[in-house]
């Protein structure tokens, strides 16, 4: 059925539609001459159906492009007349432009050369297509955070010109209008960039905005806005007229023109092991972990349970202690109790989320609770300067959650004494002067103790720093990678190195270990994968 919004009536009905995969067909566009363009989800198949002639043409992008990698269409863009289709495959290949009339397919902005140069995955992001299909914008970037390289590319499909920029100081790019203009946002300034004229003009309007959209004819720019009003906030869509754009001031492009050929031929820094010095560890890791486990005994814990869990797991980190009550292992029926040692959370202001309600005050302790419609429950309170947050599903009623909370007492020993068995801990670290700062001690009734120790900051490597995460387990971990490259490591029965994840997985006959190197792509390329592998092997061999 096609409904005409202007006439407010149904202008076409298709009572029957036969397609083997109709349930996964996405309706992409209806052209002015009432052709319907459909895409089969999670595949490369698309259909153009002429509702007037009933002619149906099916296409497979991988065949059109003669490229088996183009077997998944992530997103499809169409020109207004439906004659040009642009495909974003996100498979590390390229963009593909399909001319419906000539049935010619052109690959644009291939990323394979970048992937090969930097030895990492690249993709196209923020793809834009002008209404008549003449102009295209796409960002080429490494997949993930802190990309080693990214460029912003403007394509004129009629002339074949590709203009690429790096150091692009705009945080948002709009769609492209029919004249080849795009709105760009930088700081609190707005600009219009003309792709055919390679010219930037400043829009006389200042505000930091999150969204921009040009009307197809380029006469208007839509922006979103929000402002406080009394105790509320007003969210608005606003329209700026660009009818006087020819009078706007010309501005400089806040980006550098990139030479795609040269940027690909530039040498990366030669691999060096100079920055991979290992330093002797001068602290007793076992003693530090033991102290942390024993210190948890001074915290408050639940002492009785309205409904007895099947088992209780304990996790001790540098700042929190967790009790996880597991009622159904596979049904995810769990309640997590988090006791925070951090004094910053010792007040109700910091400990209790604003959306909880005060339900009870007992012996001077305020208990805050909320049951959310998503079956999530939260109860929080502060006891003796310790913040307690209990999160769980509808395993307990509100009264039972309160009963659990009021059973809290301190000075109760943890159920087991810490045990290291024959686990071998690192004796050297890539971080000089390293001290134990971030760690996890995990005790599971079924599997015993597991340990995680961080060397450096594995979740903050944007500044080029190197980090290593050390894991141990008594049972084979889910991600134990015995299909990776097998390597020889003295003191271990099995050892596998995965050069994509930079992880060394080991088994010494009693325990499983993982040494995971963490760094950004630039640092990895500078250090060299072989050097990183040797560093991890050295750490493992020197562990005791």
């Amino acid at each position: 059925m096609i409904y005409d919004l202007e006439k407010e009536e149904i202008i076409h009905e298709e009572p029957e539609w036969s397609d083997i995969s109709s349930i996964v067909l996405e309706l992409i566009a209806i052209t002015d001459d009432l052709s319907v363009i459909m895409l089969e989800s999670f595949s490369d198949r698309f259909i153009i159906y002429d509702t007037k002639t009933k002619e149906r043409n099916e296409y497979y992008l991988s065949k059109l492009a003669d490229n088996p990698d183009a077997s998944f269409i992530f997103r499809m863009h169409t020109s207004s007349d439906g004659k040009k289709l642009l495909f974003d495959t996100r498979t590390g290949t390229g963009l593909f432009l399909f001319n419906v009339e000539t049935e010619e397919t052109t690959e644009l902005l291939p990323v394979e050369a970048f992937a090969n140069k930097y030895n990492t995955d690249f993709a196209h992001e923020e793809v834009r297509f002008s209404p008549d299909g003449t102009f295209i914008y796409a960002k080429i970037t490494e997949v993930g955070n802190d990309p080693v390289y990214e460029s912003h590319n403007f394509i004129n499909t009629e002339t074949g010109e590709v203009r690429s920029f790096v150091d692009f100081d705009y945080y948002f790019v709009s769609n492209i209008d029919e004249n080849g203009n795009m709105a760009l946002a930088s700081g609190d300034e707005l600009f219009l960039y003309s792709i055919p004229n390679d010219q930037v003009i400043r829009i006389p309007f200042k505000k930091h905005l999150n969204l921009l959209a040009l009307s197809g004819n380029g006469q208007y720019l839509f922006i979103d806005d929000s402002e406080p009003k009394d105790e509320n906030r007003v969210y608005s869509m606003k329209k700026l007229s660009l009818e006087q754009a020819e009078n706007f001031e010309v501005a400089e492009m806040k980006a550098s023109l990139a030479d795609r050929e040269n940027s690909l031929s530039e040498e990366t820094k030669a691999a060096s092991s100079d920055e991979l010095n290992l330093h002797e560890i001068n602290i007793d890791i076992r003693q530090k972990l033991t102290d942390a486990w024993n210190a948890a005994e001074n915290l408050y814990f639940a002492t009785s349970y309205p409904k007895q869990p099947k088992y209780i797991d304990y996790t001790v980190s540098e700042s929190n202690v967790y009790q996880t009550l597991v009622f159904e292992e596979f049904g995810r029926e769990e309640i997590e109790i988090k006791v925070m040692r951090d004094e910053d959370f010792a007040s109700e202001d910091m400990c209790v989320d604003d959306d909880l309600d005060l339900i009870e005050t007992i012996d001077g302790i305020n208990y805050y609770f909320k049951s959310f419609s998503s079956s999530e429950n939260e109860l929080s309170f502060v006891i003796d300067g310790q913040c307690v947050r209990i999160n769980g599903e509808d395993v307990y009623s509100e009264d039972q959650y309160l009963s659990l909370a009021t059973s809290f007492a301190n000075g109760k020993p943890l159920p087991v004494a810490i045990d290291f068995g024959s686990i071998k801990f690192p004796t050297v670290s890539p971080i000089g002067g390293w001290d134990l700062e971030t760690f996890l001690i995990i005790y599971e009734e079924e599997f015993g103790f597991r340990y995680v120790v961080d060397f450096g900051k594995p979740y903050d490597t944007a500044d080029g720093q190197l980090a290593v995460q050390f894991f141990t387990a008594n049972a084979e971990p889910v991600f134990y990678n015995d299909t990776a490259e097998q390597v020889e490591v003295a003191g271990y029965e099995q050892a596998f190195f995965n050069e994509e994840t930079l992880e060394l997985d080991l088994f010494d006959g009693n325990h499983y270990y993982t040494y995971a190197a963490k760094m950004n792509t630039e640092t990895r390329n500078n250090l060299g994968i072989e050097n990183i592998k040797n560093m991890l092997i050295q750490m493992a061999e020197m562990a005791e």
Partner: protein
Amino acid sequence: MKKRLLLFLLGIFILVGCSAKSTDEENSATKQENPEAQTGQLEPETVFSMEFSEDYTVDIWEINSSDTGDSLQFELKTYFERDEEFFEYVVFNENGGIDARELSPQEKWKKTAAQLFYHLMANTYSWNV
């Protein structure tokens, strides 16, 4: 603990600029205080607005305009008490903003209507209202 405000959604629609008296008045006041001619800055025209209690978190994304700029579509997600709701609005010339699901004349097609509208706006400019 910060006291939670009364939880209700206020004044769902304060509708489209040219037809809504209150918005006209606000625009008029703005013009007097900050006339475009004096500052050289463009003055935006409000085409749609919604007012929410501060207890709501509101995200707006994916604005798409028609060819002429007479109409636009956008997506809006609200978070309230950890529940999220997703809306897709269409603003016509003088129709105000309506939930895209309401475009369908038949109940069973409401979801499809909203999805179709998103695709049409995101991928083409082939419609004019």
